[in-house]
């Protein structure tokens, strides 16, 4: 009798397992397919895309779109990459430091102004004065136009990430801090030696969120950067696509232009150039993200 029960369970388990694999496999294919389409189309030539639409395997292989993006504009793209990498690295470091410091202060029970700081953090999440006051403040009062800091400071502290870090810090037992205090450590030392190392998972998670937002950002460049040599990658490509789109849509416009501008393939090549590094980086930081997302959820 017992043996029969065992077999039944494992059979239904197996069926369940197989169906899970199938469902998740299908889901993975659905997620992967657009990406493969983008890659395939980026290696096609414009004429066959116009006639046949997007395809995973290009009907006619061509490096036209990449040639257009990287060719005479190769130097500009490289410059844009440098700017983006610098902004991402420095921005992430600054953001993590600022967010972690703020979050730590919110967890120190002796600090009387904690609730006030909480309000400063919480209220802007809900209410905003709008675009114009923010723009006036950044350009007229902080002089952030055409300034490298313009790409970092406005996005430096994200309230949501600060709350996330605060929860991480709260999960660290108070006894550690008390013990350190008794030994004569000041708050800065406690933060540096105890909290910062122990919340590594949270810090990496938040760091990755910040890194992604800095990498993908084009809005700050659109608002504040006018010099071409300071354009970050996303803004540079956004600019280029907007211009290509404009030229293609002009009814009466390009008198004398007899260049066939690759539009669809250019868009796809742009996508590939932009997401390439992130996709390559992701497998290495994946475990931190999954850990980070669930740690905050489980208490203790």
């Amino acid at each position, binding site marked *: 009798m017992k043996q029969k029960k065992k077999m039944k369970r494992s059979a239904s388990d197996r069926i369940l397992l197989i169906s899970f694999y199938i469902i998740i496999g299908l889901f993975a294919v659905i997620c992967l397919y657009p990406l493969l389409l983008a890659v395939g189309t980026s290696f096609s030539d414009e*004429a066959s895309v*116009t*006639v046949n*639409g997007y395809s995973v395997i290009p009907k006619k292989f061509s490096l036209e779109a990449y040639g257009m993006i990287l060719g*005479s504009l190769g130097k500009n793209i490289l410059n844009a990459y440098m700017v983006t990498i610098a902004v991402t690295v420095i921005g992430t470091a600054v953001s993590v430091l600022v967010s972690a410091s703020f979050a730590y202060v919110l967890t120190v029970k002796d600090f009387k102004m904690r609730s006030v700081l909480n309000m400063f953090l919480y209220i802007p999440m809900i209410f905003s004065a709008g*675009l*114009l006051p923010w*723009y*006036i403040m950044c*350009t*007229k009062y902080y002089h952030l*136009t055409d300034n490298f800091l313009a790409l970092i400071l406005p996005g430096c502290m994200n309230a949501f990430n600060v709350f996330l870090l605060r929860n991480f810090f709260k999960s660290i037992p108070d006894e550690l801090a008390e013990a350190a205090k008794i030994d004569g450590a000041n708050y800065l030392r406690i933060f540096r030696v105890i909290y910062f190392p122990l919340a590594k998972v949270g810090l990496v998670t938040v760091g990755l969120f910040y890194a992604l937002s800095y990498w993908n950002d084009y809005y700050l460049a*659109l*608002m504040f950067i*006018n010099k*071409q040599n300071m354009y970050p990658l996303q803004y540079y490509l*956004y*600019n*280029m696509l*907007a*211009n290509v*789109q*404009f030229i*293609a849509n*002009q*009814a*009466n*416009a*390009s*008198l*004398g*232009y*007899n*260049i*066939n501008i690759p*539009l*669809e393939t250019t868009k796809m090549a742009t996508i590939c150039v932009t997401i390439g590094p992130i996709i390559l980086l992701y497998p290495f930081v994946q475990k931190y993200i999954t850990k980070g997302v669930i740690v905050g959820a489980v208490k203790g």
Partner: protein
Amino acid sequence: MKKKVISMLLAAALTMTALAGCGNEAGGNAGSEAAKAEETAQTAAESADGDAVSAEDVGETVTDASLRPETLDTIKVVLFGEESPRMQELMENEFQQVFIDEINTKVELMYLPWTENGAGGKVDLMIASGQEFDACIVDPTWAASSYSKGYLQDLSGVIDKYLPDWHENMDATAFEAYHFGDGVYAIPIGNKPTAGVFNTVCVRQDIMDEIGMTDISTLEELTEYVTKAKELHGLYATYELSGNAPYIIRGTSDRNITELATGLWIDQDTHELINFAESPEFEAGVNLYNDWYAAGLIPKDILTNTVTLPFQANMSSIMRGTCGTTLIENEPGLKTVVPEAKTAEYYISPEKPIYKATYENTAFQVPVTSTKADRVALFVNLLQKNTELANLFAYGVEGTDYELVDGKVSKISTDELFYEWMIYNVKISSPTVAYTDEFMEVYKDWDEGAQPSVTFGFSIDYSPIKTEKAQIDSVWDELATPMMAGLKDYDSNIEELKSQLKAAGWDTYVAEIQRQFDEFMANK
């Protein structure tokens, strides 16, 4: 002790930041004053040379040495797109020298993406926040919106004085599109034939030759052409909707009607506003497209297709014409797919009058915050002054960036400089080698016989009827568009369309537009 030190440090830091802010401005001012003193000394020496040079350059045109300001100043001009490497080079050298020699003004360019071209973009934000710049390109719709927000400067004062060459090479009627209230708020630039834009039908001349047709002047002939094109080459007729194809509507009746707003057309002769959905022209257009759809001439995905340029991709046999420029616009792309293709434009009902609805779509506006409107006017004047300068700014330096072959421009460098389509003035600009002589003959006189549209210069302010417009646009998209694509027939759907338009606030919508139009006509 520690607390004292820390509080002193904090106070010092606060004072430093405050002083640094003031300090920069004061330091900056002193610096720029010194620079200005140097520059005026330089320009005093230069202007003596400059006048001599500009008199030579200009040749027989009136020398505007008297208009050339005595002090050197800088204007900041906002353009869209990307500054090409060659443009950067020329702006630092040859172009800048011309600007200083001719108008004693340095020009700084600021480029924004094309997505910011229009109301609610970064330019509006810059003006609203008081950021300094002196000019930006604008089109009539955007100018109307900016004027209503008080962003633009009245240029009536500078127009008469600072545009001597402009008035020779441009038509003053072009100002009408930027005439709001009592003033003029932008200076148009460029002069291209715009009569009957989208009123011609662009067809495949090679297919016409193949089937032995020499002309298309009626809708029946057009139907014959598209049917044969389908039989012989499997091409669909078009991907354009009939309501959006004025060249089709032209052939549906004897009335001279043009589109004014969504669902609202205007009779050019009686100045009456017409409910397009209730008009016989709409019925005829819808029926024509339904017949074409039944004959397999309209693609099933006409409403959802993602093909950017079907005519150029050899997928359709007709498309809207653009004042005869199909040679430049469509043929290059088409020839990569069908090397022996040729195109031509025809007017359906050629005996009907042709209207010029726009004179120029591009102009330079000056924001209210700028104090250099006179210099901006001089700058625009310079761009339209004579052939030599117009070619310089659009094509570059002769010999380096282009060569003249039989008086036509053959480009060596493909970098974009000042936009050709903005500067091109059919009176002074040299055409490129892509324009054949016979094309130029037709193109130069394209506007002859064209009448200005009665709505020229009229821009509708939708703010009092925002909701109605949104609802009507949505009804039109949902119900009328499939009819105009041939997917739904006229008889079973027209009543619903009419009643839905009424329910969406059609009467309020039309009343307001009628009121604005009457006001516009009264002020003419």
